[in-house]
């Protein structure tokens, strides 16, 4: 086989050093490492690194880690979620928003219905009459009067011809 050091396949040697290769791959490398000084040196040094890192145990987690975390979570939870918490076990969490949405839709429907029974705006004529000023009314009456005077001789002439 080709030397992993020459082909720069260090990941194969890393896996071999940490005994992560499967049996077939391992036996292939076993023979090579035995005869290749560079690979043997790499594997020995890498195993020393693994052992040194294994010796480094991490510190235990504080007993009150969860309590502190939930305290921080609680500080950020909204009033709505806090209010809903006692009902979570009853499955209210899903029901309440649906009920609230249904309520909003119902309210909107009622408002629309109320708008539809509101009386229509008064006819335009009435509005115009209401907006007439006294001067305008007087002027209109004068005009009507003038028109009726104009029509009188026509009627008289007509009556004469009929006779």
């Amino acid at each position, binding site marked *: 086989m080709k030397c992993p050091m020459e082909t720069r396949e*260090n*990941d194969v040697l*890393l896996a071999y050093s940490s005994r992560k290769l499967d049996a077939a791959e391992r036996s292939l490398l076993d023979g090579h490492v035995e005869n290749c000084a560079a690979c043997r040196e*790499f594997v*020995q*040094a*890498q*195993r*020393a*690194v*693994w*052992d*040194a*890192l294994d*010796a*480094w*145990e*991490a*510190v*235990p*987690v*504080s007993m009150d*880690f*969860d309590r*502190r*975390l939930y305290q*921080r*979570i609680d500080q*950020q939870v909204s009033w709505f979620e806090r209010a809903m918490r006692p009902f*979570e076990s009853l499955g209210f*969490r*899903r029901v309440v928003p649906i009920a609230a949405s249904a309520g909003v839709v119902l309210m909107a429907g009622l408002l629309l219905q109320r708008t539809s029974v509101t009386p229509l705006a008064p006819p335009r004529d009435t509005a115009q009459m209401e907006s007439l000023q006294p001067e305008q009314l007087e002027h209109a009456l004068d005009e009507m009067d003038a028109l009726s005077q104009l029509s009188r001789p026509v009627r008289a002439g007509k009556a004469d011809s009929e006779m």
Partner: protein
Amino acid sequence: MNERVNRDVGAGATPLDLDAELMLRVKDGDGASFGALLDKHRMAVVHFLYRMVQNRAVAEELAQEVFLRVYRSRETYEPTAKFTTWLFRIATHLALNALRDGKHERVLERLDETSADMPARQVPDVRPSVEQSLVYQDKLDEVRRAVAALPEKQRAAVLMHKYQEMEYTQIAKVLNCSESAVKSLLFRAYETLRARLAHMA
């Protein structure tokens, strides 16, 4: 829930890991599932952060922030990646920020401290003599110094590779780089560690 999981992942996609399923339950308002995720990953996250920043108080503070962010993101969570990839991406991001913000100075101070404040679990079970304890402590300090001397990304890659036993692809996703970049990071990191620690064999 299975229907929900299948729908979210889509046909032909790989099935979700159990953690992602738990997270989807958290999204649905199941607080117990968040507790299960915390139980499962608390130690791994704290240990990873401890080895990154090498300060217990800072590590726990950062770990709290990690889980707080997980909880806060529950509404928008989508299982697009393995849950642990997402979790360690948050943890690595926070650790790198903490180191850049100068908390690493506290780390170096900490490394110079005596062993008086070291947790009891770090001492082997067999009652050692004072001399053995000192030798062990020296060895441990040497390992910690060697890891602390690695560039931040190399350090994160080594810790995920060695202690979390992550594959190259997952480390690449956590560090947001290519798989070949991870191999290169690990190659350089282990080269440095071999030079510093090989004599400990």
